[in-house]
């Protein structure tokens, strides 16, 4: 059974890639195999994982652009030097901008990625799609191929505004694309939470019951720490960079939720 999870946010800097990277690492620690697909033209997965800039044919762009994709997904193993097993990345980069346009013109457009995965499945237990921070063809292709969705946000007006538009867009697109079954919105994750800031506290306080009234889970916030930036600068998850840092535990509820969803799927 395979879980395919899109990480979307509609606001830059909300911590999508950080979340994707840490989730990938932690799931692998629980003996699950993970493929981390970077759909962001910025190629931040490569950056945050310490990978050198990829060649075009080592990226997801080449796979999506191919007229006849034959199933050789360009995957590269992550954190081999640190004895991490089971995590592979499918890198993205600037050419994804063109792909974004191509998807709009392709007859199967939004479903292209989903078709590719149907015809040539990836073997991993979990696929994570790290999406760009906009509402366009790339995130659309991701959700059409996804079973679940996670939405990281910052506790600031621009980010929450982006999240609310994202949610509306998602419900619209579920209908328009006639996705069946529809991806499950696993939850919203407040990121970079600084308890010293009143605006963060106030927004968090309002957000939780508000999302609850819409039956959308709000996870415990991931705290702000400059160590996240330092870790990403050397291409490592916090757990490999500062394993004793208290922020490491913040991801556990999310990891557990993902594992629970897998178990549910297996039982069905």
């Amino acid at each position: 059974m395979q879980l395919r999870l899109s990480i979307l946010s509609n606001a830059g800097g909300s911590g999508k890639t950080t979340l994707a990277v840490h989730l990938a690492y932690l799931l692998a620690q629980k003996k699950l195999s993970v493929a981390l697909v970077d759909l962001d033209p910025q190629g931040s997965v490569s950056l945050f994982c310490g990978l050198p800039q990829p060649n075009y044919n080592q990226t997801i762009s080449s796979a999506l652009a191919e007229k006849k994709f034959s199933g050789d997904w360009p995957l590269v193993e992550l954190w081999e030097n640190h004895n991490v097993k089971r995590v592979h990345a499918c890198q993205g980069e600037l050419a994804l901008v063109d792909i974004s346009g191509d998807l709009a013109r392709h007859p199967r457009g939004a479903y292209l990625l989903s078709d590719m995965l149907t015809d040539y499945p990836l073997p991993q237990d979990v696929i994570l799609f790290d999406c760009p921070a906009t509402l366009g063809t790339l995130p659309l292709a991701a959700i059409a191929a996804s079973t679940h969705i996670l939405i990281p946000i910052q506790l600031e007006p621009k980010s929450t505004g982006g999240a609310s538009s994202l949610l509306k867009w998602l419900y619209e697109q579920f209908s328009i694309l006639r996705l069946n079954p529809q991806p499950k919105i696993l939850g919203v994750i407040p990121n970079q939470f600084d308890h010293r800031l009143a605006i963060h506290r106030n927004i968090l306080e309002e957000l939780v019951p508000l999302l609850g009234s819409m039956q959308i889970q709000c996870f415990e916030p991931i705290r702000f720490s400059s160590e996240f930036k330092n870790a990403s600068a050397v291409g490592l998850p916090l757990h490999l960079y500062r394993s004793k840092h208290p922020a490491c535990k913040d991801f556990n509820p999310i990891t557990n939720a993902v594992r629970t969803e897998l178990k549910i799927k297996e039982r069905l």
Partner: protein
Amino acid sequence: MTRKVGGNLLKSQFGEIGVHQQLNEANQQINSLTQEIEQLKAQGKKKSARQKGKELRAVLDDQGIFQIPLSKIEQNPEQPRQTFSQQSINQLAYSIERDGQQEPILVFKKDDQSYLLFDGERRWRAIRQLNWEKIDAIIVPKRDSENLEQPESIRRRALLANHHREDINPLDLAEALVKEISLKEGISEELIPRILTTAVVRLNRQEKLAAITKLVIAGKNEQEQGLNDLSKQKLVRGDEEKILKFLLSLQLNPHSVKNNIFPTLKLFDDLKIAIRTMDLGGHHARVLQRITPEVTGQSPSKTQNIRQRLIKKVIEEKLSISATRQYVAELLAKNNSKPTLSPETQGIIRNLDKLDPNSLESDNLKILEKRLAGKLKDIRRVLRNQST
């Protein structure tokens, strides 16, 4: 009262999501039921198909029943032909003629001029036989992979169902109301505000507005009863009753709609845009509507610029309505050589202009002469004092 930083922001951002969730759920139900019905029909399982048809109607129920001209409805070429005996059609026609069409048919909408029959062929044939012009139908969102548009009608109905949420602006509400009433009751869109105004003015004169206000929060039956009574008293007629009934069913006060909602339809385009995109209030917009080329003495585009500047000011400084009125008055006084008359003065002058001495008897004329002379004296005295 200390304002929490970031407070109340989320409510306005996330307010509408519930509606989208509902729409999504409704769409899902509709899709799966439609699929099931088609499958059952293809398998010839008529009874089960009918049962599912009932369920589908229930889901679509709050979308409203439309009266669609029979001339616009075609049989669905993709559906298997069904045979009905002439006798059964005759029977149904007779019972419909006597008791009316009890259940609406279900149709797909291709465009404004053509609909495809989805469910209810027997009823359709019977009503055609009766030579009726229109048939009651519910429109099912079209199951066609090319048509990837969100049904506008569902969105509109969701908007109307949730109009009491604070973030729906009066202009969007006005347009949705007019469109919906026009489709539902077959009244031409441009006429609807006028019809409402006529009714409200009459009811006001007959001092029946309070009764209407009470009906706003009453139940459906009470509302129907109340309107029936007014109709019997000849205080509301045909189309008026239909419009009032619709507004009351949405818990909208007709008086308020006439005063605050429908007038937004006649605003200048730039004011409409401001309402929709810049959160300009309806009342403020109506005040700003006074800034017309006639009154500023400038070209329409220059006048628009003047309006734009004031819109910005109103929004940025969060001006109150009275402050806005003041600014408009000052602005008009500045841009115009004609002196601005207060509404009071305008009213008096209007009455004066209406006065025709030839139509009055000498007794009345003499009294008028005395009174007017006295008033004129007072006015001159006050003017003298003002200029000193």
